[in-house]
């Protein structure tokens, strides 16, 4: 499965809800304000293990819009819109944690 998260974990608990129910093969893609979760910050430990396993992605345009390109946590993979489509195709069912 592909889980997309579009809210900051400082603002809403969407990321925590996603992490509570994500299985061992699913991946997370951060979009919109969700990319704040991809920055190296006080909440980074939430996703550190998943990222180390190569299962955390962030949409590049949203990262650049927020000026945090140089602030990303370790092992975050950036994708463009075409990469977003590839993730959807590869992982089937998508869950959108709005």
């Amino acid at each position, binding site marked *: 499965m592909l889980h997309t998260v579009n*809210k900051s974990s*400082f603002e809403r608990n969407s990321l925590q809800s996603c992490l509570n129910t994500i299985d061992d093969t699913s991946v997370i893609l951060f979009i919109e304000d969700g990319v704040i979760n991809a920055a190296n*910050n006080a909440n980074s430990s939430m996703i550190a293990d998943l990222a180390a396993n190569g299962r955390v992605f962030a949409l590049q*345009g949203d990262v650049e*819009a927020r000026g945090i390109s140089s602030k990303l946590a370790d092992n975050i993979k950036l994708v463009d819109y075409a990469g977003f489509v590839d993730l959807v195709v590869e992982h089937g069912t998508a869950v959108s944690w709005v």
Partner: protein
Amino acid sequence: MATKKFMYLNRRSSFGTVYAIESLEVVLIAAAFEQDVSLAFMDDGVYQIVEGQETDGIGMKNFSKTFHALGDYDINKLYVSKESLEERGLSESDLMPLVYEDEDDDWEEKPSIRVVTNDELKAIMSEQDVCLSF
């Protein structure tokens, strides 16, 4: 017209919701009415003034550039929560260098941004006539 002290609390980042740009609009209106305007950036609002925002990839207007104009509207009290910055792995050097020209000091260029603790912010807020949260 009587002048009041207005403080605008910016608590959300720029592009995920409409709060940030709406706040900036209202701030400029208050300035047009020559009110005493202060801005506070806290929580994810600190991302509004991070240097180097590039919005070409998301097709939205990069209104972060507008913050550079605030000095010309005599808006030069921009308080940024130290705790909110630190939580997000940010520091003052990650913020846009926002300045104003001080007419009382031979138009010398001075920084508009002041990083303050929540305790300091508490005191500044208590001096306001109006606080609006966005």
